[in-house]
């Protein structure tokens, strides 16, 4: 404790008890007991063990109109929360288990091997079922690394075994810098619908995509699974540092699986929810004072929330209503 004692301050100000107004509100509890908003798209956001971007991830879904729930991984592994009660399953960025064995490795290992029930079932089995049911999985940065190390991305063979990897940046260092991405027009994922280019920060040390052979690369390209690429100042795809910050194969910043339901990327769209996150926001707002205060990264979350809501209303509203009760 520091220097010395000091008379405690008076407390003449009013106490506000209303939890919803509490500015610092931290949503790290599963809101198990609380009723979910009827009809809202439900997003499950995993946290714990070194994951650290869960709050902005939840904010993104909230701003996009969905209802996010942040859950400690153990609550899922121990069966207190079922992923099947949600529409999207989300793996945020961070340093899961410290990333000491390689980014995302220990978490992926846990999902693949840790038995969650007596019958030898693993969380990966649940995730496969979740995807088969037409639901969506999103991984950002460390979350993307987990999906790749698990084999959920790109999953060309459909067997969920690792086909590519993400490893140390060519620069050999962790870096935080802003990059420009282009969406592959061949990509079928609803996450990226209607987006052409996108500015976002990268914040990683192990984002270099390595594709072990030409055949796999050819299949990834043919199916347009390399959904995001790094651009240079002229708007061309580039392998040149720092525009391509890590030296990734195919200048690739993100991947989807062939269904487009599983999507992962190294950069952080959830760190660009407000226009004021951009390093050049002050000059841009001077030039265009009426521009939206939303950040470009939010569109990805709006896209998926809208897609799910739309699918529900057009497909089977009655059935959906039934399962909600």
């Amino acid at each position, binding site marked *: *404790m*520091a*220097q*010395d*004692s*000091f008379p*405690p*301050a008076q407390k003449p100000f009013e106490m506000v*008890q209303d939890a919803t107004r*509490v*500015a*610092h509100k931290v949503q*790290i*509890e599963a809101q198990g007991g609380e009723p979910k908003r009827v009809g809202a798209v439900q997003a499950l956001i995993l946290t*714990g063990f*070194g994951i*650290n971007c869960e*709050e*902005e991830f939840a*904010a993104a879904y909230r701003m996009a109109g969905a209802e996010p729930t942040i859950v400690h991984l*153990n609550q899922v592994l*121990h069966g207190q929360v079922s992923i099947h009660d949600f529409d999207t399953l989300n793996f945020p*960025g*961070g*340093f899961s*288990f*410290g*990333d*000491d*064995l390689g980014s995302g*490795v*220990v978490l992926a*290992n*846990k999902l693949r*091997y*840790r038995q969650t029930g007596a019958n030898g079932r693993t969380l990966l089995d649940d995730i496969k079922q979740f995807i088969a049911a037409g639901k969506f999985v999103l991984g950002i940065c460390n979350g993307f690394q987990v999906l790749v*190390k698990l084999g959920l991305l790109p999953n060309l063979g459909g067997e969920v075994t*690792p086909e590519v990897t993400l490893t140390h940046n060519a620069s*050999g*260092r*962790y*870096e*935080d810098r*802003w990059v420009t991405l282009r969406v592959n027009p061949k990509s079928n994922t609803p996450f990226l619908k209607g987006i052409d280019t996108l500015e976002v920060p990268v*914040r990683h040390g192990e984002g270099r995509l*390595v594709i*072990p052979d030409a055949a796999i690369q050819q299949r990834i390209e043919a199916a347009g699974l390399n959904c995001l690429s790094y651009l240079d100042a002229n708007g061309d795809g580039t392998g040149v540092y*720092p525009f391509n910050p890590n030296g990734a194969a195919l200048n690739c910043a993100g991947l989807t699986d062939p269904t487009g339901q599983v999507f992962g990327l190294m950069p*952080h769209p*959830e*760190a660009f*929810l*407000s226009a*004021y*996150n951009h*390093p*050049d*926001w*002050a*000059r841009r707002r001077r030039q265009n004072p009426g521009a939206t205060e939303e950040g470009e990264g939010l569109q990805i979350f709006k896209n998926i929330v809208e897609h799910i809501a739309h699918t529900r209303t057009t497909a089977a509203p009655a059935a959906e209503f039934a399962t909600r009760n």
Partner: protein
Amino acid sequence: MSDTTHTIQLTLKPGQHDGDGQRVAEAAARHLGLATGRVRSAALYTVRYPLSETQLSDFASRCLADPVLHDVRLNELTAADGFATYILVARRPGVTDDEGTSAQNALADLLNEPLDTHTQHIFSKRLYLLENDLPADDLRRIAEELLGNKLINWLEVGRVAEGIRDYTPRPGGGAEAITEIVTLTGRSDAELVQLSKENIYALNLEEMRAVRDYFAAPETQAERQAAGLPADPTDCELEIIAQTWSEHCKHKEFSALINYKDLETGEKKQVDSLFKTYIKDATSEVDRQLRANGNDWLVKVFSDNAGAVRINADSLFVWKVETHNSPSAIDPYGGAITGILGNNRDPLATGIGGAQLLFNTNVLCFGNPQYDGPLLTGQLHPRRILEGVRKGIEDGGNKSGVPTVNGAIVFDDRYAGKPLVYCGTGAVMPMQFAGKDSWEKIIDSGDRIIMAGGRVGKDGIHGATFSSIELDETAPATAVQIGSPITQKLAMDFLMLASRRGLLKCSTDNGAGGLSSSVGELAGISGGAVVELERVPLKYPGLRPWEIFVSESQERFTLVVEPGKMTELLALGQEMEVELTDIGHFTADGFLDVRFDGEPVARLNMEFLHEGVPRKVLEAEWTKPAAAEPEIPATTDYTATLGQLLGSLNICSRESIIRQYDHEVKGRTIVKPLMGATGQAPQDAAVVRFNFESWEGVAVSNGILPRYGDLDAYHMSAGAFDEAVRQIIAVGGKLPNLTPGDGIFWSVNDNFCVPDSVYDPVSNPDGKQKLAKLVRMCEALRDATAAYCIPLTSGKDSMKNDFKADGVKISVPPTVLYSMTAKMEDVRRAVTSDFKQADDVVYLLGETHDELGGSEFYALHGQLGANVPKVDFEKAKALYTLVGQANDQHLIQSCHDLSDGGLAVALAECTFGYNCGASIALPESGLPLPVQLFSESHSRFLATVAPEDVVAFEQLLGSRATRLGIVTKEARLVVRHGSREVISADSDVLRSIWTNGPVNQLLGVSNMANTSNSTSL
């Protein structure tokens, strides 16, 4: 399976890029002049756990190896052909091995067995194979200077042909849980001093005598007899006293009685505690003024781990800055990472505990990283300290998910012995947790003492006492610790949830002094405690009771829990995989009572422990340093001078360092260290919003100006305070208390780092002069807080920043850092430093004086000068008030504070944001040209105003604004004086010189992104 030890080796598949190996080869050539040939790196895991062959192979290939990248070798330690020598880097016993722990986690998941991850079964190592047949001495140099630190790593080197020697630590020396008695009675003064030195108690003779007298007192004797303790103290008792009374914990010199003499004026005075006189009383006066004006946001100052101010009706802002200098000197990485994590624990464990961390900052002072002379015994090269500290901050911040939003680096040869590593952390805490005031620490007799987080080992023993003495070549290895950010992240997540569920009564962190300090201080609230040391979980056997009690093993919190909440708390800990141990309870009997297996280990009177330290009386003498203004040859063209300044060590870009820190995790950083379209415009202060629901936020700045202290410590301190204030004004902040009840909080931490300032005719003959400097620094601090009505809320002093070896002493210059935070009502109104648009009008705000003393311009010419910049607080406050009003009216488009390098450097930096220039005409002010360009007079800004706002702006600012020129579309900085062009250079060339300066060059990022790679003017 007779042998349960297995070795797994992962090597990169042929064709895969071996970045690690390549870096080692490059660094050996560059820094040591050694040709290694190709270097190949491999990861080694030694598994000491019974596994079948199939299990081992599955574990290696499925869990550890990446199928795309790695080949696996099991139980063979061999090298591929073509490599002659090797270096193996292992860890010494008990050193944190996060990689090994992660591997254990993976093994437990694979086997689906519960595997106690707190006991080490897997040991990670790195193996480097070198092509060239280097002699063992050279291999050892590479090992010790590039790959590991012999205090924490076990390093094996040799020829591959002779077999690769492996090393796996076997912790625990088999020492017994014994407590020794230390006889004090009958010891002479010399023997008492000797005892203190031998045991690193860091207590002086008077203090040792006080300890002896306490134990000899009849009432002590009677109490001890009744409690079954020996007459003489136990080793544990002396360790507790030494730690509690350490300079680090007790701030004895800041509390001392000082006899001050000004040899110039003959004035004499007595200072009754620097802390009380200049810090606490000054803040009380500020608080009185604030409250008189309806500003009642000062909630908790000086009495907890961090200071707390009120943001709004719902939440508090918590702010703490500390130093971690001594550990960083001997193990830069470990010192810095434990500095960051330790400082994080302060706001986390303020009041009840469980604040949410918002950001980190760091300010670093190093020797010249380009130094190429000989090093003293035990001294690390400044470059190595810089790189290690940088990496520690990267891992400590990034892995905790806390953005590093700003900082500063100061280079001066006098930091080559002990670097200064300042770590700051801001956090947000709700006003209440489960209906209780969050900032209060309440403890009642009967409450349980819970240790949470990491386990205890020998690491960090004597950290508190060790940092209270000067550093020499015999620094103890156990004083070094390695932090585990992941362990702390788990504990942090747990604390946040436990506090919100109302399970905690309060908490504190285990930092310097370990349990002895944390329990000892908390016990002061209830009036006593009983600790049962045999319950404390250890990393390995063999610790003595006193070692358990004072160990500074990291990532630990001490929690205070009501007995009725224990079940729920323990269940939550289990769910979140945070180890919780009930190690005793609080009492009200006035004693700190420590036991092991029921046997008494220590029993100390709390009042003696906390109040019994004898007060120091110190001597200070002020003599004004002899100084003169130099003759610098005049010139007509200062373009080259500007280039030299931009490329100088203290001004050049720190981008390669900044970008390795995550400065935007959490998505709330609004003004980052580098901004603009280029991402290369340096900013004055960071701005962070508190959450996603409102636009309220906080501006964060740092003021530090050690160079000026060579001329006058008072003006150095005043200038540093002003620098931090004006940086916040520059980004759009407002001074506090200008309007009744405006609620604009300011929260400042002072951090003094000075050389040994206690006079000793032999070992410290200029101690009186050094202490006088400290007194003057404190006087300036008091004057500044009063002038701006800005309160101090917490702080730290580090009093022994000297490094002694081979008969040489390297002492830091007296240094003070002011770390400031201030509320921003709407972060969208923040102002960044870079020029925004052509035709905007450029103004100099404030006044330039003939104050080149201590400037970077003089430093360029190898001169110090005499005319140190002085702050005129009244005029500064008036200007800052006007700038605030101009911002209220949206009149300012860019604003940059003037500091190192003066106006010329600020002008150049403002063009770095996008491709623009400026056309500037210097006024005929009567000041010499170099003064106009390079003087570092305080309280000045370079601001731009849109053409349509010029009239309103000039009307508001009046004579405080001097119109200098306009922003131009042409990317060229042109400065005229009368009819002459005195500076003319392409903006992108200036930016390239700044960007390719020594710091970025040294850290290996050549060719940073820039439109121009030309660095010639």
